[in-house]
């Protein structure tokens, strides 16, 4: 893994290598160099299997992390490429021509995170959701519980008691919480 990283590092401006396991590592790649890196890995290094493509929302940093996980079956090792993109613009180059199956992932990311991949097939079509009318649901600032409570009727009559408060009310009725 280290040698591979050294070889790659010579070609592309990569970030630090995070070795999670002896056969799994993650490295940050600038968005502009992603395509070249992927091509290099696929064609020269034997990382032919695109395991997954997904995103992580780092809301606090204002960034999306796209993770392209590649697998080299012969060496039985995986390399995850992290690409950080701006959260507010959220556009990334499509790689559906490298792996046709990536188009599906990109459709999902488009729908669930609102990340656009211009040129990816059927990217505009609804994928999983139907008639969605809120912010993309996988974004961290989307509150699913709040949405669910507003949108769907629940069976009424649920009420719960906090043991701490209940005990105080029962055992010291009428008494102000000390010092508060």
């Amino acid at each position, binding site marked *: 893994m280290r040698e591979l990283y050294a070889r790659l590092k010579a070609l592309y401006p990569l970030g630090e290598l995070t070795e999670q396991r002896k056969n799994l590592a993650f490295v940050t790649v600038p968005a502009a160099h992603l395509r070249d890196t992927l091509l290099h890995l696929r064609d020269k290094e034997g990382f032919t299997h695109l395991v997954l493509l997904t995103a992580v929302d780092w809301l606090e940093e204002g960034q999306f992390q796209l993770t392209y996980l590649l697998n080299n079956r012969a060496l*039985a090792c995986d390399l995850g490429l992290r690409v950080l993109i701006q959260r507010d613009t959220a556009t990334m180059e499509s790689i559906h021509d490298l792996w046709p199956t990536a188009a599906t992932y990109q459709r999902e990311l488009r729908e669930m995170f609102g990340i656009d991949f211009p040129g990816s097939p059927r990217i505009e079509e609804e994928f999983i959701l139907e008639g969605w009318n809120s912010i993309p649901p996988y974004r961290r600032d989307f509150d699913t519980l709040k949405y669910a409570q507003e949108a769907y009727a629940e069976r009424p009559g649920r009420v719960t008691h906090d043991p701490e408060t209940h005990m105080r009310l029962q055992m010291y009725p009428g008494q102000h919480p000390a010092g508060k």
Partner: protein
Amino acid sequence: MLDIFPPDRTQYPAKKADGTLDIDLTSGKYLKLWQGPNHPGITGNMSVELTVCGDEVVEGKTHVGYLHRGFEKLMERRTFIQVFPIVCRVCVPEPDFNEYCYAACVEELAGIEVPEMAKWIRAMILEMGRINSYMMYLGGQAGALGQGVIGQWTTYVRDLMLDRFEELTGARIYHMFILPGGVRDTLPDGFAGRMEETLCEVEKTLKDVYDVMFCNAVFKKRTVGMGVIDPSWLEPYGVTGPNARAAGVAKDVRKDSPYLIYDQLDFEPVTGQNSDIYTRADVRRRDVWVSVDLIRQILAKMPKSGAVMAPLPNVLHWQIPRGETYVRGECSRGEYGYYLVTDGSGYPRRINVRGPSYTHAMALLERMIVGCNISDVAALMVSLHTYPPEIER
């Protein structure tokens, strides 16, 4: 570069400038046909929008999302232990891989070493689940072609296996047994004996299935040479598991990068050559034999006693340091994996479920369905062995 269907496309619609097909539904030449979601020939609750010209499919679009529950979102607002009961719901027929992959991810990031005994029990559960899943598949494959009796037999042995699951894990379908740190409990008394009986029944049924389903003129007629996945498609479309093995590539995570205790077991990945529906079915049938053998090996080799749970911190406020990892396993449909990102809090930052059906049922199916006869759509779909809940989660 990937075209293997007959080059004669004169009857097919031309492509428009943007690459989509030029289909004029009003011409009367084409018919739009939905298979699913309410359709017995669909694998679960999904649908395929077919455009047919005569009997031939000219375009197929997979539609999913009927089972979307937003798991990955729900997981982000549950603590690490609270995620454990919901992961298994991601895949209904073979839920244990979710439990295993999730548990393994958490253990890796939290630095927990799982006791030896737990690893063996986990492997056994995974193999039992694999048998179940294949049994569902065999019945489904025969059923998609109109042979109901196979499904009757295989579901029966699956039921027997579910009984074993029940006595071991305390549940029939969603076992919720493999939790981060190990497994819930040890084997019940006399489990190995009853397991052996069940395995014998599985073997007997497999022989029957072979006689009736695989040595069957009509079945062969329908499946041999049908729905071929070209070996050159495997990588671009991310084909894994039996679908890839039927194309002659011995892709098996259990062998490629052994997890749990698979390095201590003796087995060879099953492969086939023709990559058609028949071969895929046959690979799966033979894979059941492998699983049966593996369960026997596990029961014979596993330690007789030992802890099944590693000590966990108090799960009510369990925090895991920042990190990310990916753990995969070989489920009955191919590579199943969990990608877990933690941020040091008590909640996962992000969990991504990589179900094999994701690639198989979407890009690959849409590719393969073109040029297929409508009568074969169901069989083709089943032969890819896809479970929709893991596509949309």
